[in-house]
Structure formats: structure tokens, C-alpha cells
């Protein structure tokens, strides 16, 4: 087999299939749940906690240059943005702008 073809098979199995099976399983489970059921409240809690954990991980364990900014400052910038979002009556643009300004300042200072 040519190495080029093998790398596509590699991606198809270790990437596409490895990810897609969880989507399929999720669809099969979700298809059996009704929107107002108890199970649905549980699934929603699990999915929400999970995404929240993903969010925290992206902030606390980043790769690249972002990792050079201390974790406490990254968390502080994200939480400040969140506070602005809440206080501004849920204006995402305002919240994101504040967080980006703070992290840009921190990046400029670190670099």
C-alpha cells in the first residue's frame, strides 16, 4: 500500500471513526428521549457540565503562546469578561471585548 493511501486510512480510522462513533451513539440515545422526561434533565445536566469542563480546560491548559500568560491572569480575564457580560444585561460582544482586551494586554506584557 502506498504511504499516502495509508495516511488517509489512518485518519479515517483513528480520526473519523474514533469521533463519529460517539456522535452515532449520542443520536441513538437522544432519539429515545422525550424532551420533558426526567432522563432528559439528567442528559442536559451532564452535557452542560461537560462543555463547562471543556471551557475551563481551554482556559487553564492552553497550548502555544497563551500558555506563557500565568493561569491566574487567564482565569481572571475570562471571569472579568463574564462579569461584564452579566452586568451589561448579557451583551456577549461587551463581555468578549473586555476579556480580549485584558488578555491582549497580558500577552503584550509577557512577550
Amino acid at each position, binding site marked *: 500500500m502506498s504511504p*499516502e493511501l495509508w*495516511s*488517509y486510512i*489512518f*485518519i479515517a480510522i*483513528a*480520526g473519523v*471513526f*474514533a*469521533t463519529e*462513533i*460517539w*456522535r*452515532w451513539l*449520542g*443520536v441513538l*440515545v*437522544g*432519539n429515545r*428521549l422525550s*424532551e420533558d422526561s426526567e432522563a*432528559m*434533565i*439528567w*442528559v*442536559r*445536566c*451532564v*452535557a*452542560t*457540565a*461537560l*462543555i*463547562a*469542563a471543556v*471551557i*475551563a480546560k*481551554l*482556559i*487553564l491548559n492552553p*497550548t*502555544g*503562546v*497563551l500558555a506563557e*500568560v500565568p493561569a491566574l491572569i*487567564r482565569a481572571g*480575564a*475570562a471571569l472579568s*469578561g*463574564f462579569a461584564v457580560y*452579566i452586568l451589561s444585561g*448579557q451583551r*456577549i*460582544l461587551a463581555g*468578549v471585548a473586555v*476579556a*480580549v482586551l485584558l*488578555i*491582549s494586554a497580558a*500577552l503584550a506584557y509577557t512577550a
Partner: protein
Amino acid sequence: MPSPDTSPGLYWFLKGSRGIFSLPAMILMGSCAGFAALTLQSGLTRGEAVFMTIGIWALPAQIILTGAMHAGLNIFAAFVAVTFSSIRFMPMLAAFVPEMRTDKTPLWKLILLGHFVAITSWVFSMQHARHVPREWRLTWFAGFAVPLTLANTIIVAVGYGVLSSFPPALSAVLAFMTPVYFMQSMWGSARGMVTRIAFLVGLVVGPALTPVAPQLDIFYAGIGGGTAVYLIDRWRRSRRGTV
């Protein structure tokens, strides 16, 4: 714009497509441009980068696989690393499907469109789907998520080679905007107090578990934290006699 009365399918599809110009879609496009640069640096070909983007359609999994291929990992080790990071899709899709389908939606349609669910499209549709009539929700989702995937695939195809090195400061800001945006939009789309508490619990429990289980921390935080919040809420409701 077609009218919602004469051609509702097209109307809702195009309405979904407008989402491509939203802030989260823009952030994602920037991140995909960054991915194009990463694949080039890691020695992957343009074709491989494009196949990964459209085939996997989950940036964390794509980045892990790129790293695995760069490091010369065998297929089993790469599969395990990628599949751990993708377990989250199961509860995500399980929560997504009941919101989007009707009693008549065929399973093949859900399986097919389920491929286009990734964090950005998940958060976006959980936030906005309630404003779309139920029978058109999947059409609306398809209008958003399919062009979003295609646009990002094109960005990777065109960006590969052009962006040999993405400016590190820009990629750092983008990498930061992603969680910051999700944090706020998740809060905005959360239904009721229970989901908000589950959100806060996940935010705290996830990082607390990282030293113990660096690969499965997210999964444990979701299952453990989410279940705990659900059980406490259920117990609270049962005391009030509403379960």
C-alpha cells in the same frame, strides 16, 4: 429572502445560514486558519488537512490526531487518544437530538446531520433553536452547520501553505476567545437554574480532575458533576412534591 409561507424549507435553511456571519462562526474560522498552519508545520499534506477537517469536524480531535501523526504514533494509540477526546459527543448529541427532531424525523437524517455537530454549532443551536418552529429546526440547523463546515474546509484548503506560520499573538487571542465566548453563550442559553448550576460545577470540577485523570477529566466532570447536580435537584423537587 423567500417567504416563510410559500417556501418555508428554503426560508429556514437560509435563516440558519445567516449564522455563518455570527461571532462564534468567525472565531471558529480563525481557529481553522490556525489549524491549517499547524498541519503544515506538522508535515501533513493539504489533502490530509482537508480530509481531517471535513471528516472529523472536531478541532480538539483534529489537533490531537495531527500531533499523533507528527509523533509517529501507531494507529491504536492514535485512535485511543482521539476517541477519549471525542466521548463528549455522546451526551452532546443526546441532548441535541430531542430539541431538534419531531416524531416523524427519520433516524438517517439525524445520523447524517449529527456529523455537523461540534461545540460551536452545538452551543449556537441550543441557544437559538427555540425560536425556530419545531418542524423546521433540523432544516435551520442544516442551513447553519453544513455551510459552516464547508466554509471552514475551504479555509483549511486555501489557508494551507498561505499561512505557513499563523501570527502567534493572533492565535493566542483566538484560542482565548473560543472558551470566553462559549462561557457566556452557554450561560445565556442555559435553561433554568439546574443547568446553570451544572455549568458552574463543570467549570470547577473539570480543572480539579485534570491532575488525577488528564485524558478523561472532562468526561468524569460531565458524568459525575452533571449527575450530582441532577440528583440534588431531583431530591429538592421531591421534597416539594413535584417529581
